[in-house]
């Protein structure tokens, strides 16, 4: 067997790894990207809003610079033009417009679905990579890295081992690369958030009408207050083209203190009347089939109804989207919008007359998913390299998360470009030593405005935030907040408050900002005292976790990628509750795992021998 040799390997095909590939190819450098999923994008999940930023100091590479045709061609969902924070308490709701905070130093921020978007990124990156002998190899899981005379030897579960001069590790928050070479220890719960999310179907034009946006605009809604069930974090709802991303992101340590099933945090959000109304749609209701009929007849009816409902769903969805209507008209079967509408009525009539189908109100959930998110403020790698490996994005623990500011994607893309630049320089000088390549990359990362954002709060951003909160009554703010936050209600003192906040520094400020007060108590008070009453016309039927998992797309591996180390530990007993896919159960005081429904979130990785599934195995998202 001959050992194949390449210049650079990128491990992980999320947005950060793909950015590195794109940049290296632009610089004319050969790189091979290895991705565990069957297709690039199928293992990635985000909230998500992808930002393009213009920091006042320093430079970043934005998605629309790395992919010049991004704005014209990329399958992003909607440009977010409304950004609202809702404080909730039962049927009371108080909203604050944070659009100015969302726009802060931003060229734009658009909602995205990772499966689709990363697949597009891959397509763009591969075109240039192929020309210089590089490319993307999906379905391959890297399992070990060793060194021979300074060159790294990569072993995978699927391919013969091969040699590279440099590695960019972009394997996400649960980076096995970081662990296998001991570049950093596993992130601990104080350094992480747990994110859980569902995709809700909603026709395009209903979204526009309901959220008050035009066809190329979108809205983001954030939630705090009683929907947190006393945890530190909150909910989000972003509009996509014809779906909604609805999710919850909570500080992992707050979940450990007060364990709760992650899906319960989504469920409570859906049950909030404001959210219930946001996700509401028309759904067909089938009549119970008469059980006294012959079984064949019962089956015939069941298939008939199912087929007609499917037709109705697809047709209605097209009829409520300009592009859908256009393609119906292009197909030649329909001349005008009216004839499309007519056809829809006919289908509905058929449903009613043939099968007694009626129409009701509910919401339609299609995909459930979860993943840990590294809290950059607390876990960014101080030394983001090891030998000839550079760490980027989530793998390096990098992201800017402060209050409503949620940015991991843009940070990872910028990191990917910086790592690619460092590697390209090393290829030119044929020096991949820590002092030449690693230190240089570290310096590039240090210059990143995002790194500064992970170290201190941006006072101008804080000021915008405080301005938006100027109507908050002083006495709502608890004593723990101290004088600074009280000052915020006064226009003259706000500037001083911000300065003072910066003097205090992140270490002292964070426990104040990221507290039960901020996420739970103050919002509840706000809603109760200043909020308007909201009500919902129906109560949503929420799928059980078993139903949610059953809908996901897995390529089962009989071999478990997770091994419980201590089945009796207190931590593992909490994981029984905290695993978003309910893979764990306790039997006779011992925690056991059933790995089949695992969504690779990483929540249990603290006290398990945790690996990603082998290539092509495990969860594959459709939306992400």
């Amino acid at each position, binding site marked *: 067997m001959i050992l*194949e040799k*390449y210049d650079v390997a990128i491990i992980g095909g999320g947005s950060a790894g793909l950015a590195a590939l794109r940049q290296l190819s632009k610089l004319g450098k050969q790189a*091979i990207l290895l991705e565990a999923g069957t297709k690039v994008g199928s293992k990635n999940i985000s909230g998500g809003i992808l930002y393009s930023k213009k920091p006042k100091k320093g430079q970043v590479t934005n998605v629309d610079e790395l992919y010049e045709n991004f704005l014209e061609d990329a399958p992003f969902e909607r440009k977010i033009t409304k950004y609202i924070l809702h404080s909730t308490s039962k049927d009371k709701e108080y909203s604050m417009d944070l659009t100015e905070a969302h726009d802060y130093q931003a060229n734009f921020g658009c909602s995205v679905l990772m499966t689709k978007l990363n697949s597009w990124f891959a397509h763009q990156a591969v075109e240039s990579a*192929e020309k210089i*002998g590089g*490319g993307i*190899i999906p379905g*391959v899981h890297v399992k070990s890295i060793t060194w021979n005379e300074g060159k790294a030897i990569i072993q995978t579960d*699927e*391919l*013969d081992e*091969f040699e590279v001069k440099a590695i960019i590790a972009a394997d996400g928050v649960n980076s096995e690369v970081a662990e296998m070479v001991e570049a950093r220890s596993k992130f601990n719960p104080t350094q992480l958030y747990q994110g859980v999310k569902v995709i809700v179907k909603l026709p395009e034009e209903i979204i526009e009408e309901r959220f008050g946006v035009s066809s190329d605009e979108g809205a983001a809604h954030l939630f705090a207050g009683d929907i947190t069930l006393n945890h530190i974090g909150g909910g989000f709802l972003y509009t996509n083209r014809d779906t909604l991303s609805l999710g919850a992101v909570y500080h992992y340590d707050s979940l450990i203190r007060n364990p709760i099933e992650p899906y319960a945090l989504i469920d409570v959000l859906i049950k909030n009347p404001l959210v219930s109304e946001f996700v509401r749609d028309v759904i067909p209701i089938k009549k119970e089939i008469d059980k006294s009929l012959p*079984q*064949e007849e*019962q*089956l015939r009816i069941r298939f008939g109804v199912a087929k007609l409902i499917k037709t109705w769903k697809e047709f209605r969805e097209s009829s409520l989207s300009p592009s859908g209507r256009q393609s119906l008209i292009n197909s030649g079967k329909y001349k005008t919008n009216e004839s499309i509408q007519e056809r829809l009525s006919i289908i509905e009539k058929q449903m009613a007359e043939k099968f007694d189908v009626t129409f009701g109100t509910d919401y339609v959930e299609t995909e459930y998913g979860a993943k840990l998110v590294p809290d950059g403020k607390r876990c960014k790698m101080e030394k983001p390299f090891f030998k000839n490996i550079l760490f980027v994005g989530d793998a390096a623990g990098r992201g800017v998360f402060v209050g409503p500011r949620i940015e991991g994607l843009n940070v990872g893309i910028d990191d990917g470009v910086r790592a690619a630049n460092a590697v390209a320089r090393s290829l030119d000088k044929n020096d991949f030593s820590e002092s030449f390549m690693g230190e240089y990359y570290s310096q590039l990362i240090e210059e990143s405005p995002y790194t500064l954002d992970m170290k201190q709060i941006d006072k101008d951003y804080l000021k915008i935030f405080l301005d938006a909160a100027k109507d908050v009554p002083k006495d709502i703010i608890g004593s723990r907040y101290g004088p600074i936050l009280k000052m915020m209600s006064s226009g003259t003192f706000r500037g001083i408050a911000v300065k003072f906040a910066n003097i205090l520094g992140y270490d002292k400020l964070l426990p104040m900002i990221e507290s039960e007060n901020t996420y739970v108590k103050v919002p509840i008070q706000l809603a109760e005292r200043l909020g308007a009453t909201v009500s919902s016309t129906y109560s949503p039927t929420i799928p059980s976790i078993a139903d949610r998992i059953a809908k996901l797309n897995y390529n089962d591996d009989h071999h478990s990628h997770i091994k419980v180390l201590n089945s009796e530990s207190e931590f593992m007993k909490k994981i029984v509750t905290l695993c978003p896919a309910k893979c764990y159960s306790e039997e006779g005081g011992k925690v056991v795992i059933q790995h089949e429904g695992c969504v690779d979130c990483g929540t249990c990785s603290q006290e398990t021998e945790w690996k990603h599934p082998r290539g092509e195995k495990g969860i594959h998202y459709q939306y992400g």
Partner: protein
Amino acid sequence: MSLNVGVIIKLEPDFSEGNVSYNPDGTLNRAETKNTLGPHSAVAAQAAFYAKVMYGAKISIGTMGPPIADLALKQAQEISDAEELQLYSDKLFAGADTLGTAEVLRVGIGKMQGEMDIVFAGHRASDGETGQTGPQTAWKLGFTFLGNVTSYSVDLETRTIRAKRLVSLQGSPDIIEEVEAPLPVFISIDPTFKSSYNTISQRLSFQKYQKEAKERVKNFNNYYKIFNADELGVDKTLVGLPGSPTIVYKVERVPKSTATRSAEVVDGSDPKQLQKVVGKMKEALEAMVIK
């Protein structure tokens, strides 16, 4: 060092659900049934593609059939990224048995670009063929015949092939036989053939050729050529009916099984009914346990 690979394929009725139609007497309604590349031919095309990825082989595909058989060539090109597609079509060829067909294929293979090193064929057709066309074509070509090949590798320097063959003997377990032969060879490929690409460079060329195949299919006509009997230059006494010594003496329908079974329709959404099924499965399993 180049490698020329030929593939012979067949357009067959599509037996997948919804595409097949039967006459009232139970025979196949060929007019109503859709056609497609035969599943065994598809495996042969995959085996040829393996030679392209691994050894940069040039691929030529040939088929004998009516003009609509270009569909099979198109499908096979998409799988194999073939650079040459030949259809042998003439009224004269009608009514051919396997020997008559083999003669056309032999001459066709001779018309392919370069001298063939390996010719692949599916191990049989799914619409009533007896699996003899391959061996007979091999015999006519004078090539070594390797049947039921499940994997292979080629040594371009010594121009030899190593192949694994699945040998099924009635009454004893299947065995895998490993053989080595000098090129040229004629291979009938086993349906269990799977190509595995274990290095980065193989995966990259796999992707490259797959992409290329998609592009080629778009320009199918640039690669496609149709030959009639004259253009092929076949000996007309050796093809079609005159070249077919097989006499179909009688076709018998397979008698309907006399065994009966009573099936019960179960509503899968009703837990009670499912419970019953589980009960029965348990019973059956218990009965299987040797006490």
